[in-house]
């Protein structure tokens, strides 16, 4: 999918996320994962690390080789999306105390991912 569509999807998901109260932790973490993945894919296309026909579905589904290759394109983005993904097993699928803090952390990471992706998009357009 092309970077513009990824941007639009990410923004749509973030608009919906803003409607959700803090205690709906499961869907807030999932929303952060979905939107951050769109921002990541837009960036990887813009950086020519992946063609528009190749999108990352989940960072943990990548081979180690591929994770390292994409991290060479943008390590911080890959690490932040991976950190959001790692919040999911225990806080989305589990019933462990502390999930609200995990959701806040996911949203913080999403904001940083968005900022980096927008900067990459602006740089590509201006360059």
């Amino acid at each position, binding site marked *: 999918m092309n970077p513009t569509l990824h941007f639009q999807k990410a923004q749509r998901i973030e608009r919906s*996320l803003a409607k959700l109260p803090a205690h709906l932790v499961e*869907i807030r973490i999932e929303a952060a994962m979905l939107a951050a993945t769109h921002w990541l894919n837009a960036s990887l296309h813009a950086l020519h690390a992946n063609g528009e026909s190749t999108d990352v579905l989940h960072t943990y*589904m990548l081979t180690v080789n591929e994770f390292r290759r994409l991290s060479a394109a943008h390590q911080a983005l890959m690490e932040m999306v991976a950190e959001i993904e790692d919040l999911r097993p225990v806080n989305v699928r589990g019933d462990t105390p502390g999930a609200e803090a995990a959701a806040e952390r996911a949203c913080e990471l999403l904001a940083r991912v968005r900022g980096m992706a927008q900067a990459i998009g602006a740089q590509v357009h201006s360059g």
Partner: protein
Amino acid sequence: MSLLHPLDDFELWFWSAMLGGTNAVNVALHMAQVTPAESAFPSQPGVYHVPDENAAGGHRAVLQSLGDVLHVGRPPIQGPVPDDVQRMMHAMEIIESHRDPCTRGESEPTADIVAQCQAAYAECLGLLRKRLAEVPA
């Protein structure tokens, strides 16, 4: 789900139905004693996070063949599954069929897709409620 508009907020509305329905299937699988009801949370098929007070974050990943499904079919359930739970899983497959095209890809969600997901979700939860109602008090 009720806070989200089915079309304007499709991605998260859909994802909520998928999460809720998958949890319902896991409940039914526990009730039917097909999978164990335990504190083991999947990160991928065959890998579960279990409590461990000595581990960073309070959980560690272990290999386990049987447990909660992440999505219907991930992992596939081995062994006999009661008919009503199979129907719940089939309803979830209808929902799941719209996941990647509409949340990851370029497919535009439509009123028809929303209606299909609503009907499948209602069927899945209805079957769970029936199962719960049949549990002796």
